[in-house]
């Protein structure tokens, strides 16, 4: 796939700690980049961001299993960036239990993000997408309702994305990985939904009459995710 993405550069620097004993400098790059929202956003603004697709600001996820991995990586980047902001600037009235849980969720999503970065770097180093620039203009991070409803959107979206992508994955190791992650996302989703409306953990808006969770196609997911991402994401060939 010639029209996909970039390699090397800052991304390779960031991925390196996953393969070599960590150096102090790169560790602090990570700690710094994720400690605060501003730094995180900046890290999404690498100056080589715009060579990802056929047009400036466009990112193609690619095809086949690598496309599915990039698809998951894009969604996890979005979630990780969102929760990093939530933790960095807690909404007013956040309880201790909420702060503990939202911090843990932020960590889980960052781990998922970095896992996919490592996975794609190992499997197809020339095809990994770059760091996406989140667009959270419409989220009021100081407002509980705004934050939790966005969190619910992201978690339910993530669950539906993994559920819809399972049948696109050829490699059974990657399929199992998707399974290992989707249930954690579903646990997050249930927790967030219960915060908004107690008892709505598996409401009829997400679970159908067969007792099955929502599944969405790649294009359905990207349509819902796109408003939160600056770059235009193209997932036309994911899993193909």
């Amino acid at each position, binding site marked *: 796939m010639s029209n996909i993405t970039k390699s090397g550069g800052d991304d390779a620097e960031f991925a390196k*700690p*996953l*393969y*070599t*004993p*960590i150096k102090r400098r*790169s*560790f602090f790059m*990570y*700690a710094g980049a*994720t*400690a605060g929202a501003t730094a995180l956003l900046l890290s999404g603004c690498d100056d080589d961001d715009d060579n990802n697709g056929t047009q400036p600001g466009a990112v193609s996820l690619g095809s086949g299993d690598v496309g599915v991995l990039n698809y998951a990586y894009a969604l996890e980047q979005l979630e990780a960036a969102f929760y990093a902001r939530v933790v960095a600037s807690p909404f007013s009235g956040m309880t201790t239990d909420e702060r503990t*849980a939202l911090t*843990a969720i932020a*960590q*889980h999503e*960052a*781990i*998922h993000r*970095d*896992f996919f970065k*490592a*996975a794609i770097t*190992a*499997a197809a180093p020339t095809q990994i997408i770059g760091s996406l620039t989140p667009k959270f203009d419409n989220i009021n991070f100081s407002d509980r309702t705004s934050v939790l409803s966005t969190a619910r959107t992201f978690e339910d979206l993530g669950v539906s994305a*993994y*559920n*819809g992508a*399972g*049948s696109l994955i050829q*490699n*059974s*190791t*990657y399929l*199992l*990985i998707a*399974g*290992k*992650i*989707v*249930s*954690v996302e*579903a*646990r*997050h*989703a*249930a*927790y967030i939904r*219960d915060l908004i409306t107690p*008892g709505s*953990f*598996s409401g009829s808006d997400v*679970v159908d*009459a*067969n*007792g*099955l*969770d*929502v*599944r969405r196609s790649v294009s359905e997911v990207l349509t819902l995710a796109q408003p939160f991402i600056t770059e235009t994401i193209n997932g036309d060939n994911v899993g193909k």
Partner: protein
Amino acid sequence: MHFLKLLARLAETDTESLTLTGPRRTALRRLAQAGTAALPAVLTALPQPAVARDSRTVQDVLKLALTLEQLENAFYTQALQQPLSFFGTTENQAAIQTIQGHEQQHVALFTRLLVNAGATLDLTPRFDFTGSKNGAQAALYPDVFTNFDTFLRVAQLLEDTGVRAYKGQVEYIQFDNFLLESAVRAHSVEARHASHIRTMRRQRGATVKSWVSPSDAPIATTGSVAAKAYAGEDSFTQYLAGNNLVPFVDNLPINVAKPPLSQAAILAKVAEAFDEPLDGLTATEVVSLFIY
């Protein structure tokens, strides 16, 4: 093995007639064939790795799923026969009602999938949720339907086991997109249930996260069958295709805490971030605690 017991019981019973077969029957006639049997002879003749291979059939997968769902459905149905005082609040009762509804739908779904594929249904197992095998041994959970906290502990065990069991089965149905998607979508609903049960327990004072965490207070005695439901769940090693390890172990690339977490604390978060599969035999063993 309760499946063997069921088979024995089936032999002396007038079983489901084969005329129940549906349109999918022909396509799925190979349902009961072992997965490895379909491999060309040249492949099977190759030296096998010295690891025991689980050769589960699609029928095994569907029957395990059905047994799990029947177990959960019966468990919540029995609970719902208890008075409101058992649940404490109508919210608690309503949550159990919601979960029971999904388990019932899952039972119907997997029954339909098996019947449509031409499989013969086993008799619904007999359940004893105290774990006493109908009085044949000491009860593991004697107050399961009189003490709501005990009930929630067993509920967590069943839901977490369900999540892991589905995950352990996906590789055997990967070739059938419809079955795969049905299973993974039921699987994430079980995870939602597990999360809610865990949240309820935490609100009632238990040390437990809404996700499986090494910091959870164990709900089963070390070395017991129930403890197998959590064995290996705290793994922080993850593999890529080709058995390549992602070395979270040696490195600390991920840290969103201020001040930064210790390596041990990060690895605990890695363990939380991935739910682990449970193989079919172990899942059956856990389920069998409640079947006689």
